[in-house]
């Protein structure tokens, strides 16, 4: 049966353009249709936590705006002129040419055009991201691949303690800036030197540091694995693949201990930090105990409709630290079939010996049909996207939008990562519950 997609939860490979924009002063140049950019950033940007055009996104992004003539005759000359003028008009440090469906089907030799500029020493790469090749999780990987392959150079030596952080997909995850900042802070606290290319203060300088890292840290169930493998192959940098985005004391403790032992750090310092942060966390949880236990309408069971990273991490926190019960969970990031068994395995133990069934589907409509048919036996908690708000009304559920599209929230630098992040999440969930009937 055809895998239809109703209520989209991700966009196409060309959505990787947002990963370019996530690098400070980097800009994508699209060799694509006139509407591709607008549709994609509208969905994973503006209508996803209110992530607007920023420095040079949105309608600032150079694009060849494919016409019928381009489809018939090809458009490499037009692309060349667009790139040449982009260098003149736009004030940026790094350019990445991304192609759309038309160019990839017609077969424009984009590589040839871009190599011409690379030979002139211009900071530019390309990736053939025609939307029919998959979703933007894959598109993100394609962008990383092109940067690693075409731009990064070996470093003179390894910088001890430097760790490159690779985690959630920028923009697709509306909390991404907070996630990278909070992961950095955790690593810094235990004595490492984080290097993050995405977000404020990264940019080309951070890109240029990548090959000097002691190791790469991938915090993600599957997205980005190719990139760290490629970095190992190209620069001999080892990597730690940690599948769980740490939310709350249980998982954050595990995460810090795992990273520390991998990096050979002073474990006493790590334990002291964990103890201090747990004390802070439980100070507030203790204070809120009445709300958590004695509020009139409390959810007992929950479900999640999100990408694999958030479905897993949120579920682990709700089970391990908040005492809630999972129903079937929905992973909507198009996890490749050959990775599904491994990802499914992660959900077998969410804590306390409790596991959850997982349904992989990019079809949000299907997920909603299944949720509608679930017997929750109390008002359920649904962590999903803004598509779920209607369903929530039908089911008399509590809903918090956390996964693309999050069109009903404005998000800045917060994330749910770590100890403080977990407090933010508890605030958000219980504010939904408290405000529901008032």
């Amino acid at each position, binding site marked *: 049966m055809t895998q239809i997609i109703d209520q989209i939860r991700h966009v196409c490979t060309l959505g990787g353009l947002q990963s370019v924009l996530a690098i400070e002063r980097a800009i994508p140049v699209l060799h694509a249709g*006139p509407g591709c950019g607008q549709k994609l950033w509208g969905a994973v940007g503006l209508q996803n936590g209110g992530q607007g055009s920023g420095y040079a996104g949105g*309608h600032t992004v150079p694009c060849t705006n494919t016409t019928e003539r381009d489809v018939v005759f090809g458009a490499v000359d037009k692309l060349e*002129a667009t790139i040449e003028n982009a260098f003149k008009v736009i004030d940026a440090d790094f350019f990445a040419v991304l192609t759309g469906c038309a160019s990839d089907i017609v077969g424009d030799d984009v590589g040839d055009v871009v190599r011409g500029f690379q030979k002139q020493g211009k900071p530019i790469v390309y990736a053939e991201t025609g939307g029919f090749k998959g979703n933007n999780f894959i598109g993100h990987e394609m962008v990383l691949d092109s940067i690693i392959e075409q731009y990064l150079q070996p470093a003179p030596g390894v910088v001890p303690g430097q760790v490159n952080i690779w985690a959630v997909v920028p923009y697709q995850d509306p909390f991404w800036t907070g996630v990278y900042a909070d992961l950095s802070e955790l690593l810094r606290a235990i004595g490492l030197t984080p290097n993050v290319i995405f977000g404020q203060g990264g940019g080309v300088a951070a890109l240029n540091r990548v090959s000097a890292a002691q190791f790469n840290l991938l915090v993600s169930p599957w997205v980005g694995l190719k990139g760290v493998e490629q970095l190992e192959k190209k620069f001999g940098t080892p990597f730690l693949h940690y599948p769980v985005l740490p939310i709350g004391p249980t998982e954050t403790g595990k995460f810090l201990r795992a990273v520390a032992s991998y990096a050979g750090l002073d474990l006493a310092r790590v334990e002291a930090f964990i103890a201090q942060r747990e004390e802070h966390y439980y100070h507030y949880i203790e204070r809120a105990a009445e709300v958590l236990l004695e509020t009139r309408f409390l959810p007992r069971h929950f479900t999640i409709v999100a990408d694999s990273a958030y479905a897993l991490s949120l579920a682990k926190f709700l089970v391990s630290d908040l005492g809630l019960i999972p129903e079937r969970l929905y992973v909507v990031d198009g996890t490749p079939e050959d990775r599904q068994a491994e990802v499914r395995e992660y959900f077998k133990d969410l804590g306390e010996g409790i596991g959850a069934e997982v349904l992989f589907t990019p079809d949000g409509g299907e997920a909603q049909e299944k949720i509608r048919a679930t017997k929750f036996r109390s008002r359920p908690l649904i962590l999903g996207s803004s598509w779920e708000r209607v369903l929530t009304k039908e089911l008399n559920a509590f809903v918090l939008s956390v996964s693309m599209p999050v*069109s009903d929230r404005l998000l800045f630098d917060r994330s749910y990562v770590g100890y403080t992040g977990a407090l933010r999440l508890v605030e958000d969930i219980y504010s939904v519950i408290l405000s529901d009937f008032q």
Partner: protein
Amino acid sequence: MGTINIKQNEVPVREFRLGAVTGYVGTIGDLHDRAADGCDVGNRERCFTQASACSSGCCQGQLGSISDALVINHAPVGCAADAVASNVNYKSGARLRGLDYKNLRIISTNLDERDTVFGGAEKLRDTILQANERYHPKAIFVTASCVSGIIGEDIQSVLNDLKDELDIPLVPAFCEGFKSKVWASGFDAAFHAVLHGIVAPPRFKTNKVNFVNFRGSARKEIISTFEKLGVEPVFLLQHSTVEEIRRISEARATVSICGTLGSYLGNGLEQHYGVPYVRTEQPHGITGYKNWLRSLGTLLESEEEVEKIIASEEARIAPDLEELRAKLKGKTAVVGMGPSFGHNYTRVLRELGVEVLWAATWHFDQKYDHGEVPESTKRLAEVDGDLPVSVGDQQNYEIVNLLNKLKPDIYVTRHGGSSVWATKMGIASYMITDEYAAFGFNGIINFGNVIVDKLTNRSLARKLAERIKLPYSEWWLAQDSFSLLNAEGF
């Protein structure tokens, strides 16, 4: 005059049908004269462009917002990305009108690499069946995409094969992004789908007037005004039902809040079913509203009632208007909008006493389907032929450069992603999100007050501008704003 052929399943894009252009710089007088004389406004290409928008978004936004229909997008998943913004828009419209709280339905066939080689007809068929099973819609529209267009998918055959199986209209809408630089071609694709596949010949005349608009925020005011003229508005297409649309051929007239949006449907209904289309400038501000209402009044033979409404309303707002004009005296504006809104709002700003320094429009239709230059353009050319104008498919680099040179008090715009750049330059800006923002007598007062408010406190713009850097090189900002526009014919 072009003839609209509703038997065919596809409508030609605006470049071919209306002589639409996306590259021009000059004066409103020149633009108008060349369009009117038939000597043609030669389109000027650019050697540098930024991402604009495509027909597919406009088309899906219209069709997807018909409350009991659904849209199948025959495309890779990214082409359905606009479903998210359309859903937000849809819900805001539903809230405005107090309608059911629900999500709109735009479903992707999710074309992949294999389909680009072997075709996706089976996928389309299967998606239609699954979607029908899931939602039981009253009609299904299938929107094309760049991929379906390039690989030559035969959408119509798939629909023909399913005709007996599904007892609802199955209608294609051809809105491939690469076919037109004018995203408004997508409106035509949507309205053509409606004319071709939904609208039935009239059984009789009703007292309805088709009102082509977007979310319909001024619904109550319009219902009450139309009541005085003995007619009832039917708001199209957003939030209308398939059955309502089927009957629009029975209406007494068609009007539109936007010439760009409504002219195809209006002319199609006029040509095929004799429903007259009101072709005046749109009802924004005072002159626009008066000409529009008088024209409608003549059609409905309610001239006297119309004059009564105009006289009493004009007198009612006179003191407020006077006050606004005093406050706005000496203020300057730049306009950046679609062509109908742009030329209409330039007139409205002038009515308020604001000096419009420049009117940029996102495209320009030389002649609408009834064979005339848009009335809003004609009127503007009559009163101020020297007004500088430009046409560009929302090329921000030109707009930023222009604003940097003209430094108006305010930038008045429509379409997302433009107003922010004025703000970042310390210039007050106002993006018109509501199509009724300056509707008639009430509208112009509200609109004027918004402008006054925007000019009164510019702290956000001023402070933001002090702290951010524009993404353009010093070199570019020093160039002529339109220096990357090629000569005609190149």
